[in-house]
Every structure is written in C-alpha cells, then in structure tokens.
C-alpha cells in the first residue's frame, strides 16, 4: 500500500512525486493533501515534479485539482522542478494548468509562496479598513 508522503516545511507542505500517478494513488494524494492543509492551516503547497519525466493530461488534471482544492482552503500551489522536455511537451499537448504557479526549484518555490502570502496580508489590511464603518 504505497502512499505519496507529504512533508511539512514550516508553513508550507511539500509533496515530492516520484512514482507514476494512477487512479487510486492520485485520489489518495488529493484526499491526504486536503486533509493536511486543513489540519495544519498551511498557506502553501509545493509539488515537486523534478523526478517526473512524463506528465500526461491525467497528471495535469490531478495537479489542477490539488491547486483548486487548496485554493478553497486558502492555500496557494506551486509546481517546482519541471523538466525541460516535460515543459515543451505540455505546451504542445495544450495542457492549461490554470491557477497553478511554477518555480524552478523548491527554494524559489518557497520564496514565491512567501511573496504571495505577504501581499495577501497587505490586501487584508486594506479591506478591513474599508469594511470598518461605524
């Protein structure tokens, strides 16, 4: 019974995909991740695909799902470490990958998440001011 491990990196969650995602394992990943985001109140999810040499539309859909689910729970998703051949193939395949941010590696990915969270807090302050009407 293999599951994909989800690691905690400070305020973020890191998922490193090293095996082929097929139905059961993918659904398990979605469920586990959503649970973890909720439990930890994490603001960011990093999906490391540096070991993945083939990304087909199925995997694209799973990644898109994870991004959407996390967003609902107020977490952003960043995909890191995409291999050049995979990027070129995905563009040709026409995979949209909406709402998914990308970064070159885990470090850059975390920087990106941090910058997104800071701007979130900035916006929150403004809206609070607007909403406060005595």
């Amino acid at each position, binding site marked *: 019974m293999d599951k994909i491990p989800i690691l905690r990196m400070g305020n973020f969650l890191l998922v490193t995909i090293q095996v082929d995602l*097929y139905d059961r394992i993918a659904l398990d990943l979605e469920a586990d991740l959503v649970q973890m985001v909720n439990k930890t109140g994490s603001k960011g999810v990093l999906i490391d695909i540096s070991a993945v*040499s*083939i990304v*087909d539309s*199925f995997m694209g859909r799973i990644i898109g799902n994870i991004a959407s689910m996390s967003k609902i729970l107020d977490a952003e998703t960043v995909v890191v470490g995409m291999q050049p*051949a995979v990027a070129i*193939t995905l563009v040709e*395949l*026409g995979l*949209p990958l909406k709402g998914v941010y990308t970064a070159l590696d885990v470090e850059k990915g975390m920087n990106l998440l941090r910058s997104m969270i800071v701007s979130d807090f900035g916006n929150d302050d403004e809206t609070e001011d607007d909403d406060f009407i005595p």
Partner: protein
Amino acid sequence: MISVTMTKPKTMILSLSKDTVQVYREQDVVLLRNRVREVAVKIKMGLVNQTKLITAASELLRNMLRYGGGGTCLIEVVTRGRDNGVRLTFQDKGPGIPDLEAAMRDGFSTGKSLGLGLPGAKRLCNEFDLKSKPGEGTTVMILKWANG
C-alpha cells in the same frame, strides 16, 4: 523552356521489429512506457521527442483502459530509408467512438477528463490514424520519427 511535372514517389515505410504488449491493468501503463522508451532510445531519438512520444502513448493508453476495457499495443520500429521511427498501434474491443469528429476536438470528453487525449496525441506525433466503429472497438496508430 521545358517544364517537368514530377510526382513524389510514395516512400514505403518498412517495419523492422514488432512487439505486442497486453494492457489491461493500470500497472501495465508503466511497463508499456518503459518498453517504448527502450525502443526510442535504441533508434537514437532525442529526449524531447521521446517525451512527446511516451506522453502521447500514455494518453492513448489511459483512453484504452478507461473506455475500451483494455487492449493491445503493438510497438514497431519502422524506417523509410534514412529515417527511423517508432510506430504504436493501440487496439481495443470496446464500445467504439460514436462521434470521431467530436472526439478529436480539444476539451471534448465523455468522462471527467480534460478531453485532450486524442487531439493531444495527434499534435505530439508525426502521424496519427484513428479507426473506430460503435460496437467494433477502436484502433489508434501514432508514429514518431527519431528526428521529429
């Protein structure tokens, strides 16, 4: 001035090797990917072309498993003189595709998928052929030359 009309001779594509793989379980997907990669590497296909070929194969495989109830994949090394290539033929005895035109449209899906499988596979490869009759199953052929 003499004008000469030349008709391009149809170059014959010859099959150099054949290998059939049965695909009925999800685990077979990994097996097939590895076999295809092995063959592609043998004919010195570059990494990007390999990735495109295997991704296309992956799309068609999932289709075959999900809608066709599984089937066979014939892996061939083909040649047309100077170029070598890999030709994959997927065959299933499933319900078939009722509307081929719709199936080849981006985003069209009868399931929950993104609907990119068939048109995507076509974009990724040099040659693509789809034959399907409701009740008679589906046959999909893709071919990728080593030099793209």
